[in-house]
């Protein structure tokens, strides 16, 4: 046992990806996200079935699976956009139980939506400063400075004073990412961030997400972009019918899927 532990440590030094694996083993450090026995029903429909998932600090998880498999529901439970019916969610050591714990968790977790959900009545800059000013009490000057920093990071500082409708889909999604980053979250959730985009705009958004992944941000990405998953993920999670069917490194997952369902799914989406 100690030998195995040492081996892990040595590997960690050499491989950035393995860093996540040591966190996941029984160290005392708290994980970024711990989900235990999560269940969720929509009336009689069992959307999540006893889902367990642990995400270490700095780990990048890609969740995939057929539509209706519960991927979005799962990550929406993490910041309580959906209430779960049973099970435990702990985010960065805070256990989700009441309104104040939800508030604390939302303060650590950023989210990017499929439909961008920018505020159309505000300018790009106002979209970015609203949260820091109202929720964090920053002054306008500080909030705008921070906003410009993240707009530069997503490479569209020149759009700051435009209205949302003046931007392309890809630009809007990058603004949405910057808006989340302005809250300086420890964890980012992406709910199919490129599914509503025209094909030519997908890569500009994925580049931003990859850049974020390389900076060590903990993230869960729900996506069908398998090229991105290979490039950025530490671990793949495959879901079907509300349950996690298979998890593994991208290499294991793509090259040697263990379950039949997973193989079928991969065949279908990688066919073309």
């Amino acid at each position, binding site marked *: 046992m100690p030998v195995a532990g040492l081996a892990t440590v040595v590997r960690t030094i050499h491989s950035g990806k393995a860093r996540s694996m040591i966190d996941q083993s029984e160290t005392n450090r708290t994980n970024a996200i711990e989900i235990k026995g999560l269940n969720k029903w929509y009336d009689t429909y069992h959307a999540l079935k006893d889902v367990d998932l642990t995400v270490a600090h700095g780990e990048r998880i890609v969740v995939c699976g057929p539509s209706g498999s519960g991927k979005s529901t799962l990550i929406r439970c993490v*910041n309580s*956009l959906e209430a779960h019916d049973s099970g435990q969610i702990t985010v960065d050591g805070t256990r989700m139980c009441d309104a104040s714990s939800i*508030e604390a968790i*939302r*303060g650590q*977790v*950023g*989210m990017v*939506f499929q*439909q961008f*959900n*920018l*505020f*159309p*009545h505000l300018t790009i800059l106002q979209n970015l400063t*609203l*949260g820091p000013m*109202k*929720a*964090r009490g920053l002054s306008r000057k500080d909030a705008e400075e921070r906003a410009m920093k993240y707009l530069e990071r997503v490479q569209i500082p020149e759009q700051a004073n435009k*209205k949302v409708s003046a931007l392309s889909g890809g630009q809007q999604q990058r603004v*949405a990412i910057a*808006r*989340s980053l*302005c*809250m300086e979250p420890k964890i980012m959730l992406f709910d199919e961030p490129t599914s509503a985009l025209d094909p030519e705009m997908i890569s500009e958004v994925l580049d931003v997400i990859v850049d974020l992944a390389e900076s060590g941000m903990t993230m869960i990405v729900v996506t069908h972009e398998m090229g991105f998953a290979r490039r950025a993920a530490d671990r793949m999670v495959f879901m079907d019918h509300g349950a996690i069917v298979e998890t593994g490194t991208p290499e294991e997952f793509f090259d040697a899927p263990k379950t039949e369902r997973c193989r079928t799914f991969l065949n279908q989406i990688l066919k073309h």
Partner: protein
Amino acid sequence: MKNILALLSLTALAGCGSAGNWGWYVIDPRTQSGWNNITFLFDGFGATIQLSVIAAVISMIVGLMVALPGMSTNRWIRLPSRIYVEFVRAIPLLPMLFWVFYGLPVVLKSMGITVRIDAFWGAVITLAISDSAFTAEIYRSGIQSIARGQTEAAKTIGLTYTQTMRYVVLPQAIRRILPPLANQFIYIVKMSAFASVIGMQELTRRANELVVTEYRPLEIYTLLILEYLVLVLIISFFVRWLERKMGADESR
């Protein structure tokens, strides 16, 4: 259409026909008594406008306070709002006016509160409450038309419920709420005529009183209708201007 035209021409013909059917002298500004009558009628404008504006403002505030809990995901928070809307919407204005004016002081007195509700405040309370059920529904549909993604995005950047409403939802909803709300204001202006029956000295009451002394209902009520028409046209004009201004704001 043909029928209406026929009716209109008949009315007009009746005027030119046998002498004594029309007596415009009663509101002829060239004579002293006619002028006095006109100023007597026009003096009702102030009360009608005051009554309508105060009732509309209260109705808009009460309506919002009813609408917001009415959209809660918790059915027990939602329930009182639903009951309020269904109940208030079902009461005709005139019986409610009588109840508030004659009945409410008695109820309050039995609770140990002695207040005199005068005609003005009786009418304001009635119009405001009666209208608030409708404004609440207007707010609800306007707010619910703002996509859920907006409130979700607001939650993820840490805004509270109040902040979400104030900075994200209401600024977007107001453009959809404004036209039906203006419609409702026009409705209040017209319904304020009912206040005449409890003695409120507004446009309709004054017309009634003049009819009793002058025996010229046709001319006086015609002028009364024109008074409301002018009032409503001015409001409509103002609302169109406001809508254009906000519409231009959005497309910029």
